[in-house]
């Protein structure tokens, strides 16, 4: 029973592990670019969750073979969702990187604690 559980849920657990790695990078690292990398890891783990849900054991990719009966196809719906999500993901990542570049230009650093220190000093001076 427990081995069954391990085999049938191994995917989900690795996905959760990756998601938590991304989350950990996101909240514990101060460097903005590293944070964006963490966000990407998080995002990819969600993609993997969806794709593992769409997989049917023994299925083939959902490209129809006309004239052949009884072929088992994997579920195409998650593929569509994730396909668009990947492209939107890179677009949003590029916005994040652009923000990081602007912050670097305005503050001279992309480390979160240094930015906070600069902000605190500016507020104290005002």
């Amino acid at each position: 029973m427990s081995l069954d559980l391990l085999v049938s849920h191994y995917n989900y657990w690795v996905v959760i592990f990756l998601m938590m790695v991304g989350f950990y990078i996101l909240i514990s690292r101060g460097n903005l670019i590293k944070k964006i990398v963490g966000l990407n890891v998080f995002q990819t783990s969600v993609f993997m969750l969806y794709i593992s849900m769409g997989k049917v054991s023994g299925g083939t990719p959902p490209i129809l073979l006309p004239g052949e009966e009884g072929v088992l196809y994997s579920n195409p719906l998650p593929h569509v969702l994730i396909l668009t999500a990947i492209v939107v993901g890179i677009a949003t990542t590029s916005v994040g990187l652009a923000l990081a570049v602007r912050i670097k230009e305005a503050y001279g650093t992309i480390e979160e604690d240094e930015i906070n220190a600069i902000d605190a000093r500016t507020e104290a001076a005002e």
Partner: protein
Amino acid sequence: MREEVIVRVGAKVLAPFIITFALYVHFHGDYSPGGGFQAGVILAAAFALLALVYGLDAVQKVLPPRFVRACAALGVIIYAGIGVVTMVLGHNYLGYDALAEGHAGQHYGILGVELGVLVTVFGVMVTVFYLFAGRGRRTQ
């Protein structure tokens, strides 16, 4: 990388194939994996490769930033325009059956819409690449 002969020649040889492959991926997307999103990204990657090897200026001469920016907007217009066309022809918005008799309408519609996606994704990716690369050059 100005002086690396192998890289320069390799990039020059590879680039046309990458571009052809992108078009194949787009127009064959009905029958095999592929479609506008992938084709747009591959097309952008071809120009990014050229820009990395030959420098930004050489590529921007072929593909001016204004043109690429226009592409990004044009793709969305193509996509939405197809929807309007089908509506004018008396079907639902994006109801491709209006475009031709039978299933051919669906084919034309899907190809057209994917073309819109391709143009937008290509335009966006190259624009973003130009902006990052160009900014690096100006700050130095």
